[in-house]
């Protein structure tokens, strides 16, 4: 067991982990941050996406020890302290960008990373950026629409109902 320390959603967190403990297990099992999900074991689905030092990372693919000393952001830290949703979360709700909600935390975190890199992505850029995020419920239509809307682009004009 080795001690790890990381800042998660702005709070300093400490824990003991085995060498093989994945970051996602540390977040879910030790810190109780169950908003980050596990949808696969081959690093393909993106349900587990969090930000590590500002970059989108699949937390099922990173060891907890590798995040020692890092700044980690998860879905639990995205809304404002008063509970109001951030722009991306709000756009997902407004445009019905989620159904069962299982892929949603990863989608929101990936979208945040995309918009940081590319504040006004095209439809195509969004679809390609989401290559590593699988959603089985929505057929992606409303997810893409929500991200366009979150980027301040007129989603309705681009996406037919």
């Amino acid at each position, binding site marked *: 067991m080795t001690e790890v320390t990381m800042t998660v959603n702005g709070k300093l967190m400490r824990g003991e982990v085995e060498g093989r403990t994945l970051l996602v297990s540390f977040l879910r099992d030790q810190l109780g941050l*169950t908003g980050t999900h596990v949808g696969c074991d*081959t690093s393909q689905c993106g349900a587990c996406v969090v930000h590590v030092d500002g970059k989108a990372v699949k937390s099922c693919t990173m060891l907890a020890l590798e995040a020692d000393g890092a700044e980690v952001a998860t879905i639990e830290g995205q809304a404002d302290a008063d509970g109001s949703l951030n722009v991306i979360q709000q756009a997902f709700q407004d445009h*019905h960008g989620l159904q069962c*909600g299982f*892929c949603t935390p990863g989608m929101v975190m990936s979208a945040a990373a995309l918009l940081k890199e590319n504040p006004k992505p095209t439809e195509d850029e969004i679809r390609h950026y*989401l290559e590593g995020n699988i959603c*089985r*419920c929505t057929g992606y*239509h409303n997810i893409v629409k929500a991200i366009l809307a979150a980027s301040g682009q007129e989603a309705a004009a681009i996406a037919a109902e």
Partner: protein
Amino acid sequence: MPKDHGIGASPKRREDLRFLTGSGRYTDDINLRGQAYVHFLRSDMAHGKINGINTRMAEEMPGVIRIFTGADFEGIGGLPCGWQVTDKHGQPMQEPGHPVLAQGKVRHVGDPIAAVVAESREQARDAAEAIEVDIEELPAVIDMKAALEDGAALVHDDLTSNLCYDWGFVEENKAAVEEAFQKAAHVTTLELVNNRLIANPMEPRVAVGDYDRADDESTLYTTSQNPHVIRLLMGAFVLGIPEHKLRVVAPDVGGGFGTKIFHYAEEAFCTFAAKQINRPVKWTASRSEAFISDAHGRDHVTKIQLALDADNNFTALRTDTYANMGAYLSTFAPSVPTWLHGTLMAGNYKTPLVYVNVKAVFTNTVPVDAYRGAGRPEATFQLERVIDKAALELGVDPIALRRQNFITEFPYATPVAVEYDTGDYHATMDKLEEIADLKGFAARRAESETRGRLRGLGINCYIEACGIAPSNLVGQLGARAGLYESATVRVNATGGLVVMTGSHSHGQGHETSFPQVIAEMIGIDESMVEIVHGDTSKVPMGMGTYGSRSLAVGGSAMVRATEKIIKKAKKIAAHLMEASEADIELKDGQFSVAGTDKSVAWGDVTLAAYVPHNYPLDEIEPGLEETAFYDPANFTYPSGAYACEVEVDPATGKVTIERFSAADDFGNIINPMIVTGQVHGGIGQGIGQALLEGAVYDENGQLLSASYMDYAMPRASDVPFYTVDHSCQTPCTHNPLGVKGCGEAGAIGSPPAVVNAVVDALRSAGKDITHIDMPLSPARVWAAMNG
């Protein structure tokens, strides 16, 4: 002006707040004090005889609490099958046992052999690797036709063959169908495969068993679409726990698509083991495990023939299907290729004679059961493909051929035992022609050609049957369950309502849409209504969510219970206003006396029900809570017309979906936003089936497509924006809401449109191609073009 409230409005989903902030409560998020973890040792062989299992070394491994094998389940029931099909000779299907842990033999890759319960997940997994199993490999049967040959290895030694049943429908029509084929002016024949799929909800299955020794009570938390059904099946048939000692909870569930309907071995195991070791036991499937343990879908091999007269009227239809059951009968497996498939073979057309034959076959593969659409996509695909092929052979327009044969008068009794109550197939086709801009196709095709791409247009219709019912009929057809739904509506003293519904929401948004109905009925704000579902200790009874039944059946039960509430509330209001009950009207949350200005508010009446000082106690009891069970009179029959435009790159065979349009008739609609989302999701899965997905076994029964590296799930870049319209509405005539169901339509209606479009594209380049089997991978399309 769209409504902002009640039926027909699209309020934002209230469940989104928890899902968007990471505060959903999925089964894997549940951790109980002192819980142990189970890891299943699964067969890596498709078929084998178990000679011995040595757990001694594994038991010594750190953290191991107990190891279970099939021997621990001797004398305990196996997993039951919920539907008994009768074959064409009137005999019951062959029904093999399905042990919780393998006994004597393993029958598919993934069959659980042993279960290690340990202090941690890792310790359980490590110890499972130390179990020594001595299994003698037996020849595996994978191909359905080979499985039926004389001398084929038997999946179940106690059965006479690998044939589960040979079903004929409608057997009495068989001779007349033959005769119509003799007389036909034209016969079109098509052989095709409906590819085997894996549902892949993004949340893998999870089960947490708990046991309370003091009360002798078991609790199971599970990723299920129908917790009450699991309680009944597991309690009554497997573990022998009476319902009042067994609680099943399905909290937030991350998608189901059918594969979370069924009762699985892992659920029974965790419930059983928790009692044995007197500690909670948790199992979380890895995705790799899901691929070899979740029931698969589809997997039909079919030959269909359509007979037409000299005027191109359909005169008869005949179809022969081999349907894969896999190694065991999953909960509803036998019903899928029969009653959910054969009854839909008339489609939208007035073909007077139809005969359906289905041979269900055991193979050494994962069990196959319902997946989004369940039987109806298989029916629609073959029917709409054979019609397109007929249009090609006859040189007629595929839309005109369909229109000419549409059913136009309702109610319509089909030759396959069902009666469509309403529909307007010309209207949805008209709407499709408009929204898909079919007039503009020629110009778009010309433009694609300038870029060296082949453009194709595929259209098709579909009919579906939702809310399978009524119970007394499905009982005759072999269902071992009722197919009603229940709801309890509890009104609190201060006027708020709680609805306890047997429907389960795992993405469908019931917490938002169900309150819209009540808000409309009473004239109050939706925020006054709370929905409770997914817990057998809170909801009296439920048959769950599948077959697009929630609103049509569960919503109707809620309406019936609310009607009872309103009736009683009117009595109370009449008493309060000293008026006659017959004169009381309820509007906008106010009870008034017709023709006067007297009124009392909803909240005054509900308060009176619980503080009955001024109350008709001699006539009615205090309190305001009602339960209703609703058993529908018939299925509902949504229908629609879909169009797909593809581009094919002739150099690579790659297909891209350029446009996809859907015109559906779902009857009345409660929440258009949610309905649109359901159609989008269905289309996404249908495109997945048509272009990408396929579960592939090698001849030894190894699943080659057992991870997301090998099983191609549709990604955002594989699909376009869809154009969806549901303004054509012929309300269902037999449920109080006039709703039909929308959950599966997209998955049913879209695969034939895609394949029709690709065939059209290739033919535009002069290729004489009439069919390609799904998934239309670049390799298959390229081979078809260059073969």
